[in-house]
């Protein structure tokens, strides 16, 4: 760090200095505790940036533990747990994936003693993971391409004479296909998969599939598609920046990021502390101010002003427009639905 003077120090002096520096956090932290480094596996991008800016920095302040991030590949998780050499302390991922991993025995049970479960969304406190935010798979459109009024429900999206953008996965997409076909949102689950494919058949030639979130946002911004489905967080900022894109939360499917602690994580206790902090009203609110993925802790909403709340899928106003994805359904049916979806794609 002090490159210029380091050369003139004796080894002993340098060691003494390093020792003194490493003592500083000790003096600061009230419960004497050695700082450790947690490994957090995430999907990267804006989400990870926001974690760093809010929860991670607050965690560092509180416990003096550092957090480094790495890519959250499911295959790596499974290999590490199988071989008993787990490097990750926490994994973030889409809840519909983590529930599958949890059933395979890849996670530690979550310790909820320091978490106020009463305020969390129903279903947020799962045995092997906790939901941490609420995003929306919602109706979007390119304002420059759109002819006529903006679609107000999925049936209008399906009826649109133009190009329709959808995520190339069965999860979430089969839900909106059923809604477009007239299934009432309250009766959505269990999904009638055959009917969903019949609904997709009707617009097969109009669909432009997008594979990844960044690509999905791009096809809307560039006008490659006219209307379709997109995650709100991907088009929120571009819309504010003046891009020709807009969206609403009508009949949105609400989806969640979740955090889980891999089985045999080296810093299990610290990871549980980190999760408790992330679910606290203050951190949930701070996160939602940065990124329009709403809190799962209802107490956080009281800390947010109306302007922010209007952008969040889990605000009282927006949440009643759509429906939360049924994790249990997908945990039971992922494999079969994916197989059918792939057959349908290629058929």
């Amino acid at each position, binding site marked *: 760090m002090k490159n210029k003077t380091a050369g003139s120090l004796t080894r002993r002096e340098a060691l003494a200095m390093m020792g003194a520096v490493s003592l500083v956090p000790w003096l600061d932290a009230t419960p004497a505790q050695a700082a450790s480094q947690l490994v957090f596996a995430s999907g990267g991008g804006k989400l990870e940036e926001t974690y760093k800016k809010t929860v991670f920095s607050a965690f560092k302040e509180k416990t003096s533990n550092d957090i480094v991030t790495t890519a959250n*590949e499911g295959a790596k998780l499974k290999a590490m747990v199988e071989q008993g050499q787990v490097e990750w302390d926490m994994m973030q991922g889409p809840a519909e994936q983590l529930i599958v991993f949890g059933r395979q025995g890849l996670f530690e049970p979550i310790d909820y003693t320091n978490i106020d479960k009463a305020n969390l969304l129903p279903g947020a406190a799962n045995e092997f993971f906790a939901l941490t935010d609420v995003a929306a798979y919602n109706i979007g459109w390119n304002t420059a391409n759109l002819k006529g009024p903006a679609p107000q429900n999925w049936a209008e999206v399906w009826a649109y004479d133009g190009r329709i953008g959808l995520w190339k996965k069965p999860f979430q997409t089969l839900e909106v296909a059923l809604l477009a076909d007239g299934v009432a949102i309250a009766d959505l689950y269990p999904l009638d998969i055959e009917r969903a494919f019949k609904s997709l058949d009707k617009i097969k030639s109009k669909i*432009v599939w997008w594979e990844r979130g960044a690509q999905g946002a791009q096809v809307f911004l560039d006008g490659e598609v006219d209307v379709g489905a997109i995650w709100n967080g991907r088009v929120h900022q571009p819309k504010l920046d003046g891009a020709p894109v807009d969206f609403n939360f009508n009949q949105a499917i609400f989806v969640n990021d979740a955090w889980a602690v891999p089985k045999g994580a080296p810093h299990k206790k610290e990871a549980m502390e980190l999760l408790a902090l992330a679910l606290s009203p203050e951190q949930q609110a701070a996160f939602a101010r940065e990124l329009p993925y709403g809190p799962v802790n209802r107490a956080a909403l009281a800390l947010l002003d109306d302007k922010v709340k209007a952008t969040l899928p889990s605000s009282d106003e927006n949440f009643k427009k759509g429906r939360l994805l049924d994790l249990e359904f997908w945990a039971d049916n*992922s494999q079969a639905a994916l197989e059918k979806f*792939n057959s349908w794609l290629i058929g």
Partner: protein
Amino acid sequence: MLKGANTGTPATMRKVSWSVARLYRWMLLAPALFLAAFFVFPIIRVVLRSFSDPAWGLQNYERIMAGGPYLQVLLATIQTAATVTALCLLLAYPVAYVMSRLSGSLLQIAAACVIIPLWTSAVIRSYAWMVVFQRKGILNEALIGAGVLDDAIRFLPGSFAVHVGMVHIMLPFMILPLLANMRAIDRSLLRAAEIMGANPLVAFAKVYFPLSMPGVSAGVALVFMMSLGFFITPALLGGPQHLMAAVLIEQQANVILDWGLASSLATVLLVVTGAMYVVYMRLTGNATGNLKGAL
């Protein structure tokens, strides 16, 4: 560098050559051990896993055969790889031919043009093609501007876009083996053919083209095998019919975590590739002889 490979061995070198050759053989030991540890062993584990996860038996293969998307996707993968290989060969052959006759800075410039695209990742190049092909992209705007089109063509996602994208990425892997082979072809043989009365076309067909076959073999094998494993380009540029085997394997390995099925899909792909390679080599002649000439 390529030129030097062509010059004969001086008599003085011959004496030491056998010991150098033996040394070379020993030098293969380290890479062989490396491959055994990091390639052969994991592949054996994958194959074993396909028969043992979740229980010993053929259940994973039964699932692949039981219908569903798997066989169709495998077929589509082979089809796409074959088309890309054929297009690459068609485009690369004349390029390599012209390059083989260049020398000095012209050759260096041409070689740079072939090699520099390899420095950019396939992901970035696929996104770049998206920009070209999209509805309001450069290509559509240019065609509309020139009055060729009234309304934008839908290139994305589609066969045309995915083939252009994949051929663009694979082209250097076809040109380079062809070039190495063509530079080693003795052109006086062509002159001899013409002296014997062959017109240039016949001389090419009967002399040059057969001599370039080792390069063709190497290039075709390289491009075909690499195309089979393509992932990101078909995902971004291709339509639903370009669902590649690699995408299915990734879904099973990384999202569903059904490693038994993932392993069996990978094993089927490996066996099919191996079988096609053997058949191909039988058809085009002795494999080792050809590769020696090409490399």
